[in-house]
């Protein structure tokens, strides 16, 4: 191996070690019988049991999953619409503003978006009486808003890759524009829509800052709960929770990878 490849190879090793060692350590210590990090008390699953008996955590997890599912679905629909518009309609009134509103959430610091949304909800409450109670509804709205920007970018990028001649061919063959979108465009961008949904789901599930701003009494999401616990220091049941999530993610990503692999294989059959 020449000098270049050795450097790259060692950077790869270092990089992946850097990425994964903390994760592996969390997994290992979730089985540590002792509460302390510095002491190894032997293998045990007591933290998992504690976790499963912790109603607060279970409720928070359930709330987070519900919010994530709803916001991901709505964000995918809105984001696909936005992506379609940006990719297929060349000019319309206010396009510049629209493009800005789609690009900004991708990089805007969360404290700003969170603050802004909370102030909006408070103002709305003063003005029209809704939302009277902040909680799941406001968190969901907030999540939809920033997630749809991500979905829009994914869809727009996919659509610019696809040749417009496919849609023109459908028009030529007798399909009205709305049917063209349904028959041709949507089926082709379906994988992109699925990635968009998964991304929106993860962003929602993971969000701490914005949820903290726009939530209300009684609506504690999983990240909010975890944060309040770990501010005070290490909590071993959080290790267990982390391990479960890591497992779910790995399985999910593994399945997705396997599906894509199978799809690629079927393409080579001639």
């Amino acid at each position, binding site marked *: 191996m020449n*000098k270049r490849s050795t450097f790259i*190879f060692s*950077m*790869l090793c270092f*990089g992946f070690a*850097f*990425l994964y060692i*903390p*994760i592996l*350590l*969390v997994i290992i210590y979730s089985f540590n019988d002792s509460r302390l*990090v*510095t002491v190894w008390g032997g293998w045990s699953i007591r933290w998992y049991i504690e976790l499963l008996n912790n109603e607060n955590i279970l409720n928070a997890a359930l709330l987070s999953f519900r919010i994530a599912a709803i916001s991901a679905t709505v964000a995918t629909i*809105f984001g696909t*619409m*936005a992506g379609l*518009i940006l990719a297929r*309609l060349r000019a*319309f009134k*206010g396009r510049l503003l*629209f493009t800005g509103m789609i*690009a*900004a*959430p991708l*990089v805007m*610091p*969360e*404290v*700003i978006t969170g*603050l*802004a949304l909370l*102030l*909006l909800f408070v103002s709305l409450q003063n003005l029209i009486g809704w939302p009277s109670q902040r909680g799941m509804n406001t968190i969901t*709205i*907030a999540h939809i*808003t920033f997630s*749809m920007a991500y979905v829009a*970018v994914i869809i727009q*990028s996919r659509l*610019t890759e696809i040749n*417009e001649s496919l*849609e023109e061919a459908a*028009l030529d063959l007798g399909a*009205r*524009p*709305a049917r063209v979108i349904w028959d041709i465009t949507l089926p082709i961008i379906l994988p992109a829509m699925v990635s968009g949904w998964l991304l929106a789901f993860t962003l929602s599930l*993971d969000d701490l*800052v914005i949820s903290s701003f726009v939530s209300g009494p009684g609506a504690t999401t999983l*990240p909010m709960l*975890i*944060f309040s616990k*770990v*501010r005070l220091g*290490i909590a071993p049941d*959080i290790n267990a929770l*982390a391990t479960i999530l890591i497992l779910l993610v*790995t399985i999910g*990503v593994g399945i997705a*990878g396997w599906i894509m*692999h199978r799809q690629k294989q079927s393409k080579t059959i001639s």
Partner: protein
Amino acid sequence: MSGLLISLDNSFRDRLWKNTIVAIPYLWLLLFFLAPFLIVLKISLADPIVAQPPFTPLFQESENGSFSIFTTFDNYLYLFQDSLYFVTYLNSVKLAFISTILALLIGYPIAYGIARSPQPTRNILLLMVVIPFWISFLLRVYAWMGILKTKGLLNGFLLWTGIIDQPLELLYTDTAVYIGMIYSYLPFMILPLYANLEKLDIRLLEAASDLGAKRWEVFKDVTLPLSVPGIIAGCCLMFIPAIGEYVIPALLGGADTLMIGRVLFDEFFLNRDWPVASAVAIVLVLLLVLPIVYFQKRQNEELLSES
């Protein structure tokens, strides 16, 4: 020019479809993204009062029944007078900038290595980069708490091997924040870099080599310039949000790790001073406007050049 575009203008029914599809996301974003910023601006021009909500309203009815607008720039003056804010803004930019550069230096070789790998390996490596991305950001930062604390794993390991004999103060320092930033944002840096490097045509490198360039010259003259869009994308995706980052400094940083995200959060939740928090937010947005606009321009250029 898309046939779809003209066809959508053809009949009332089609135009209705088009207008609906445009209107729904547009209105949503106007209401839930743009309007909030205008409200933040408005509140930054108000006075804090002990009330619900804790700021003076914009329109005030005076005794004879007419409305007047009440605004004050006190909050902005307060920001500029108190040097702490200025220092915090600068510190945030500095921390974000250094983290971004370090992440770039680490991430570029990794992205390059993945892009150069032969097929089955490449997909596996990509998946391995993506998995941490899907795992909760919060939990990954938390993992570092256990490693970096005084009675933590890193110190334990170093003491045990005898490399040091006093535990290092790592947690609650700037160093911990750097590590946390790089760790959390690394996938955001690697993925755009990879997307760009993957498209690199090997024949360009072969041509340069054939014309007499040595390995490092091929990198400097061909690979590096062509990967600039990826570098810019990765840096924007990390630098801009990192300036306003809250979680990492909150969990890993110390009392003297000044970051504007924390200041804003604390100003809001601890001091209950909404107007000042709003002013902090507005100034931060103004600071970021140029990078954000630049990012958006590059995004559009990239998309146009792909189509």
